[in-house]
């Protein structure tokens, strides 16, 4: 009994350093945000007090919140399938024995290594009106000038494209690892049966990659609702909130308007949505994707 107790103590002592950091910087802030979301923002003359669900009511009536939520859903809908599809395509391509395979793999992975801030600045140049890369190509081909980030219609799509460019290489690595886990004799067996490349992908590779797809999907959803860096660099939520995503709006409310309690309430909603999404994906999809 004594030795079991001391083993438990040892275990907890070993967990302690990491646990302390997690509690101090992750768990406690989460709980604190949750508590703060039910209080008013402290002002120099008015200390914080309990306000119940007032912050949440404010949210329901806040058009910018709804706009950000809608933007974020469109952003997710646009980026996730595209990034995953591209990742899969690239992974299958560089999984084959092609000349320059290592170079292609590296090239696809490079955007992942770059900091988002740097990526955003590169794309800012691409999108710049008059002398940006896109503009030069477009005008060279005789198209009219267009301010990609400056107009309501294209701004969200433009920032979404940057996210796809940045993320698909990262997801490709997971697919590549999974593809290499598939025994090459399966491909040979399928080839003997006369299965075309497409049939083999559809009937064998894709189903066997489902666990990876689920994992990537969850990551992609989280990333889509966590995007803020390149919005800050490229558009600051503009024009007219057309590219304001939830996390960016939280940042704005919290650190530009200093309405920290309202920001806390927004954070709680965001976390709740992500938790539900993850639960649905793991709980519902997982039963369909594992074969072993």
């Amino acid at each position: 009994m004594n030795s079991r107790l001391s083993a438990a103590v040892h275990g907890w002592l070993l967990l302690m350093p990491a646990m302390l950091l997690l509690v101090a910087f992750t768990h406690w802030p989460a709980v604190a945000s949750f508590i703060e979301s039910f209080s008013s923002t402290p002002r120099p003359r008015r200390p914080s007090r309990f306000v119940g669900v007032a912050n949440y009511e404010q949210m329901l009536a806040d058009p910018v919140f709804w706009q950000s939520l809608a933007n974020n859903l469109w952003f997710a809908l646009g980026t996730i399938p595209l990034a995953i599809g591209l990742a899969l395509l690239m992974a299958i391509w560089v999984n084959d024995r092609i000349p320059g395979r290592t170079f292609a793999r590296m090239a696809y992975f490079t955007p992942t290594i770059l900091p988002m801030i740097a990526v955003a600045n590169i794309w800012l140049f691409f999108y710049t009106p008059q002398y940006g890369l896109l503009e030069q190509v477009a005008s060279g081909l005789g198209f009219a000038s267009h301010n990609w980030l400056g107009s309501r219609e294209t701004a969200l799509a433009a920032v979404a494209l940057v996210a796809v460019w940045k993320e698909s290489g990262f997801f490709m690595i997971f697919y590549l690892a999974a593809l290499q886990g598939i025994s090459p004799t399966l491909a040979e067996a399928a080839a003997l049966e006369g299965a075309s490349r497409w049939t083999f992908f559809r009937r064998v590779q894709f189903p066997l990659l489902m666990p990876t797809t689920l994992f990537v999907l969850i990551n992609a959803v989280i990333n889509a609702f966590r995007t803020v860096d390149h919005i800050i660099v490229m558009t600051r939520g503009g024009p007219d909130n057309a590219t304001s995503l939830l996390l960016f709006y939280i940042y704005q409310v919290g650190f530009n308007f200093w309405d920290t309690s309202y920001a806390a309430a927004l954070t709680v909603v965001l976390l709740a949505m992500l938790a539900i999404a993850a639960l649905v994906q793991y709980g519902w999809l997982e039963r369909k994707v594992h074969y072993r």
Partner: protein
Amino acid sequence: MYSILVERVSKTWSGTSAVEDVSFTVKAGDLVVLLGPSGCGKSTTLRLIAGLDTPTSGRIVIAGQDVTELPPAKRGIAMVFQSYALFPHLSVGENILFGLKVRKVPRAERDARLAKTAEMLGLKLLLDRRPSQLSGGQQQRVALARAIVAETSVCLMDEPLSNLDAQLRLEMRREIRALQQRLNMTMIYVTHDQVEAMTMADRVILMRGGRIEQNATPAELYDRPGSAFAARFVGTPPMNVIPAQAVAGRDWALPAFGTHVLGDLSIGIRPEAVRLDPAGVPAEIVAAEYLGADTLIETRLGNAPFVARTAGRIGMKAGDTVHLAWSPGDAHWFDRASERRIA
């Protein structure tokens, strides 16, 4: 009439040759075993016939059609892989039907063929299971079923039994042989297990270092091995092949042909051909292994290990001296330098 012709086929991987100038034919309805130690080129030869690799030179003909340049699916073959290559996400039934679906065989025919094959291999109750829910032997059956349901005349097998335990292997090799004869399939079967080769094959092609060492029936391979390598590879325990000087001075043991210098020869005697005889060659026992039905006596003769197999138990132990003899007709003579058979 032959069903498969392999003509002067070589395969080189960036400078190193895996298969060198291999030629043989397989008669329709025969089971031919490609036998040899690992790395001898037997699996590569099979993969070349299957079309999974392309030969560097040479020609492969299956059922009268030159298939050297054809993709695997157009060669009219089925194949069983060593790892079975079952699709883990598909049920047993779907695994078996995979090829028929790809080839767009009508549903009614598909179902009929599945039922027939499942019946034949005793898989009827397992059709809805996933491969991971099956034992190794059952997975092996599914792999076999997938090859049989294709109803091709040629079936290739790449060490299909090497992942099974000894008991199951014995059963499966009988079953595969029976199926092959019942369905009149032409089969090429790769193995490194000489027992499988001896028990199953109509012909055995023994390979070594990418070349064919001997192409013979099992009986020929055992009775007249073409080289010292073939002599040692077939039979358990393997044939004793020792320098011929070890029998110098024993007139009864000398070769009947007189043209050779004894120093250039090796003599090969199968352990089961050796008998204990006071007139024989004396040798000291190194170890005696009692197996039940018989005893293996390991001795040294002319500084080389020499094993004799005697019936029952012998009352001797290491250090004792035995006298070994055999009938002259049981001796195999090989050239010592080239290892080829002389008589």
